[in-house]
């Protein structure tokens, strides 16, 4: 389970997952939109039940990388992925193509802006559950309550589950979206700058939540906020843009990246020189 120092030209084969754990790793992952290449040769192995922060300047392919991990890139016309992404023992872009619907049950995602459906709070959570076969009212109620409790929203909304989700505050909406991602009980949670549109109090609340969630989930979070990465990340990956192509330039345990970076760009970026 070794880290990569300068990953640009190295190849790393994905390791076999330990028993009972859903691992996530990429090998020489490339992504292009039409003729524009967005990611080049990204190989990294995400540590299970930990928070991995993806940092780097705008346009370095962080969000694109995240979208490769649950095949959300499929939604963009003209996108093409090469290389390997392995979730557990399944190669999701392999010849025997993994069903994206099954994949996304294992790999949940939370977006930059809270995007609740224009439904009631209850229906936001009931819709994915019903779609995946949970019909029993008692079971629906149990799973919805447990997801809302996990994000600390149950006490705030339990008496108004039938009100529109859009009436909640920004921070509550984002926690509802996290609950909605958790309600299907995925193993991996992808978060694309989940706090960038929130005030400091809501941000703090979500950060606390992320730290609690990592006991059960593997979390990959894209963030522009270096202080946030310092507060919550166990591992950090720095992406950089070379002639418009995003590459991974350094990956390691958070203390090592923040205190003893090996790549000169990492040091300069973290010190705010570039």
């Amino acid at each position, binding site marked *: 389970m070794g880290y990569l120092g300068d990953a640009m030209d190295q190849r790393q084969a994905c390791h076999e997952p330990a028993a009972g754990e859903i691992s996530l790793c990429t090998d020489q992952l490339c992504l292009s939109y039409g003729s524009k290449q967005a990611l080049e040769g990204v190989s990294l192995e995400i540590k299970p039940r930990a928070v991995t922060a993806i940092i780097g300047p705008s346009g370095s392919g962080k969000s694109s990388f995240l979208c490769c991990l649950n095949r959300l890139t499929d939604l963009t016309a003209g996108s093409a992925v090469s290389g390997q992404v392995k979730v557990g023992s399944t190669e999701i872009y392999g010849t025997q193509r993994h069903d994206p619907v099954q994949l996304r049950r294992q790999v949940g995602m939370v977006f930059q802006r809270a*995007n609740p459906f224009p439904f009631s709070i209850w229906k936001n959570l009931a819709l994915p559950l019903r779609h995946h076969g949970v019909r029993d009212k008692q079971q629906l109620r149990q799973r919805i309550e447990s997801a809302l409790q996990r994000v600390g929203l149950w006490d705030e909304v339990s008496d108004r589950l*039938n009100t529109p989700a859009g009436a909640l505050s920004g921070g509550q909406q984002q926690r509802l979206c996290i609950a909605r991602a958790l309600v299907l009980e995925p193993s991996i949670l992808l978060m694309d700058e989940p706090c960038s549109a929130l005030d400091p109090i809501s941000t703090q609340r979500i950060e606390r939540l992320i730290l609690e969630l990592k006991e059960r989930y593997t979390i990959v979070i894209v963030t522009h906020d270096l202080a946030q990465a310092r507060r919550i990340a166990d591992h950090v990956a720095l992406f950089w843009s070379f002639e418009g192509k995003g590459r991974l330039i350094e990956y390691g345990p958070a203390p090592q990246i923040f205190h003893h970076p090996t790549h000169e760009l990492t040091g300069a970026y973290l010190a705010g020189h570039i």
Partner: protein
Amino acid sequence: MVEAATIAPPLGARSTLGIDTLVWGVGLALLALFGLLLAEMFAAGLPVLSLEFITGEASDAGRSGGISAVLVSTLWVVALAVGIALPLALGTALYISEYLGRGSTLYRLIHGSLDVLSAVPSVVFGLFGNAVFCELLGLGYSLAAGALTLVCMIVPVMVKASVDGLTAVPTELRAAGSALALSKPALIGHIVLPAALPGVASGVLLGVARALAETAALLFTSGYVLRMPDSPLDSGRTLSIHIYDLAMNVAGGDRFAYGSATVLVILLLMINGAIALVSSYAHRRTTDS
């Protein structure tokens, strides 16, 4: 700099005032024109309206009696046309916006064709309908041939409005649905369509309005015989043709032409209201738990 600063605000304010006046002026003028039109029509048409006028049979080439046969023909044509056009248009709109790539050649081709089709004069559709439905398919002058011709006319309008409604659904909602492992049909059925409902409803309304108001295309296809149709395969006269005939061909038919026009406008307002009600009910049903 000081001079510029002191001069600039009044100039800006003055030009804003000018634009405001212009915008308000144009708006009020249009409203007045519309009001005048309705007032003139209702003034002449409302006194004609009675139960006898709505339910009676026409006599003396429409100068007296009622318009029951015309109303039945109109309802046949509009109901058939919208009933056939709606599923066709919705299916096409869903295919274009959800399954075809925005950049694909087929997408551009279909979009371009729709633009051209919705701009084709109705008389051309009339000639086409006459050649294809009346002659080639052997339907003759009939309400069915008229309805099928209207289908060709209103499908492009409905598709365009529905595609606009569907493409206006925020990408974030689609991404959220996909990330929750919803299959494509579920994503469309549960998230995209309910969110696009107002756009789709306005498309339906545009289609119904165009079908109700159509004259030229129907003259060539459904005919203009003034009698009660027994089935859609009979020919018949719709409201707009009745108004045209009374106003242009029947001396002394003006009063009943105004009466029929008033019925047409009231019908249109009722359909508008009904569609708004149905769409808001459907929206509520899908958004509530």
